[in-house]
Structure formats: structure tokens, C-alpha cells
């Protein structure tokens, strides 16, 4: 009996959270459209996620300036050190610009690297599926 009550309460809470979650999120029509770039890195040594993000930001700022960087809205979602692949989010109409900025990266803390975009996906789920398929 006790257990059943607990279950009911839990589901109730879940329902409330569910409602709150959607109330606080931006409505889909107002959300910005994004693209997820699956990229691979070839490098002399293992590259840390933070180092890589700093270098990507640096490259975009030096190529397009502050205004261009703000428009491209990049965000490093994930980077796997072992497999040398990662996912980068950007605005849906700035894919080619971000690609050029990634191609301009030649070293991270004096270790030479080369980057390449493997695939572009519309959702994180799609991007992770692509990674699992390719590796």
C-alpha cells in the first residue's frame, strides 16, 4: 500500500516537472535553428577538450571578429580524446563559415593538428548516431 502511494506521488511530481519544463523553455517557433558538425582531428599528441575549444574560439574571433563570432553561436558539445572526434553546435546558416574557421586551425599549444568536418546533422541524436557509425 505504502509503495503504491509513493508511486502515485512520484508520477505526480514528474507531471509537474514536465509542465514546468515546457513552460520555462522557449517555444519551438522562437528557438534558433542549429546544426551539429561532427568533426575529426588528427594531431601529434592527445588534445584536451578545453585547449581545443579555446583554439576554435580564437580562430573564429580572428577570422570573423566579435560580431561574426556572436552570429555563428558556436558551442562545443562533446569531444572524445581517444577517438579524436567531436560535436560542435553552430547556427544553421553559418556552417560554411565555421567550417572555414575550423580549417584555419593549424596548431594547439604548439602541437600541430588538422581538422575536418565529417558530417553535418540537425539534432544531437543524429550526430551521435553518425559518430557511432563512423568509428
Amino acid at each position, binding site marked *: 500500500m505504502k509503495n503504491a502511494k509513493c508511486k502515485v506521488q512520484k508520477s505526480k511530481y514528474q507531471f509537474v516537472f514536465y509542465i514546468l519544463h515546457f513552460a520555462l523553455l522557449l517555444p519551438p517557433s522562437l528557438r534558433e535553428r542549429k546544426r551539429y558538425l561532427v568533426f575529426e582531428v588528427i594531431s601529434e599528441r592527445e588534445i584536451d577538450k578545453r585547449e581545443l575549444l579555446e583554439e576554435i574560439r580564437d580562430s573564429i574571433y*580572428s577570422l570573423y571578429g566579435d560580431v561574426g563570432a556572436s552570429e555563428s553561436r558556436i558551442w562545443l558539445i562533446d569531444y572524445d580524446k581517444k577517438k579524436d572526434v567531436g560535436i560542435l553546435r553552430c547556427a544553421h546558416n553559418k556552417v560554411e563559415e565555421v567550417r572555414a574557421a575550423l580549417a584555419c586551425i593549424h596548431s594547439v599549444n604548439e602541437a600541430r593538428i588538422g581538422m575536418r568536418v565529417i558530417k553535418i546533422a540537425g539534432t544531437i541524436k543524429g550526430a551521435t548516431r553518425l559518430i557511432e557509425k563512423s568509428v
Partner: protein
Amino acid sequence: MPNFFDLNVHAYPETDVPVEDMYRIAKRYGYTGIAITNHDDTEKGKEILPPSISTFVFRGVEIRTKSVSELKRKIKLHYGEVPLLAVHGGSEVINEAALKDSRVDILAHPCGEKGEGELSHVLVRYAAKNGVAIDFNLNAIIHSRRSDRARILWKMRENLKLVRKYKAPAIISSNARFIYDLRAPREMIALASLFGMKKDEAIHALSAIPEGVLEHKWKKKTEVEII
């Protein structure tokens, strides 16, 4: 999908990177062929191409000199010996001498590796007439920052304007010295868009024109006209 070529790559005798490594990475990136064009004055030994990759890797030479008379002598020496003859551009005198010679296939980085050289409309007209491909070296964009890069992009934009006007053959190359300098074709297209090259132009400069250069397509035409 078109066949992509990168006609300016430096490997083993000049750098420490073996040709096989370049081949492996270029193949992975989706190229159909690369050309190893080592500088003739730094060559320590002859590169050995294993027969398994000889259909993918083309042999070439990049002549680097400062005087016109020496350039002419070297062109005479290498012409017919190697399938691809490139000239290390940069100074205006060398650019002019290379573009006037129809035996030359490629004028590599005419605006220099740091954007110091220039091309004029007269020279580009010679390039169109003699079938010398003008190379846009993207390594210069990748490895420079700020004012250097701005100057290089400006020079490339001017060259592109002239190339469009006189319909001279233009190619995009990486001028790679390490495997990390190579870029995949789509990255090259994105980089070419930085100096105003459109997507279809860039694809053409990576696929059809290099293929024509390897087959000496534009040379044959002029020979027929002379006969």
C-alpha cells in the same frame, strides 16, 4: 562527386614526412590524386614511389630560383623529365618569366608565401595564352593571422578578379609540408570562399582544372595551332 586533386604537396626528401603518409591521409580525405612537387634546390635524394600508389601520387618538381636565366636553364633541364613542372613564384620577375613560358604547368603561390608578390593583368593574359595554371595557396591563409592574412586575402581577391576576366586556369592547392597541413576538399572550398571564390568555381579549381593540367590539356591546343 567530382575527382579532387591537390597539385602542390611537399614530402619526403624535402620534409621528414614519407609519401605513404601523405597518400594515406589524402585518400582518407577523399582526394583522387596528389602531386608531390618538392623544391629542386633542397632535394637531398630522389623520392621513391612504390608502384602500388603510383596511380594516385603524381611526380612533379617546383623550381625555386632568383634569376630568370637560371629559371630558363632549369626549365630546360626538367622539361619532359617530370610530368608536372611548377615554378616557385613570389617576385615579379620570376612570375613574368614563368607565365611567358608555355612549358611551365603551374605557377605556385604567385603572391608569395606571405603576400609580397603581385600579378598584373598583362601577366594573367600570358597565363591564359600559355596555359599556365595560377595557384591559390591556401596554406598561407591557414598559417597567418591578422594583418598578414588580410594582405594575402586582398592579393588573392585581386588575382581572382584577373583570372575571371581573362579566363586563365586557376587551381587551389594546400602546399602541405606535413600531414596536418592537408585539408579535405570541402574545407578547401570553404577556405576559398574567404577570398570571394564561389562554390562551383572552387570545385572546378579543385577537380576539372588540375585534371586538365595533369593531362596538359591547354598545351595541346596551342601546339595544334602552331602546326
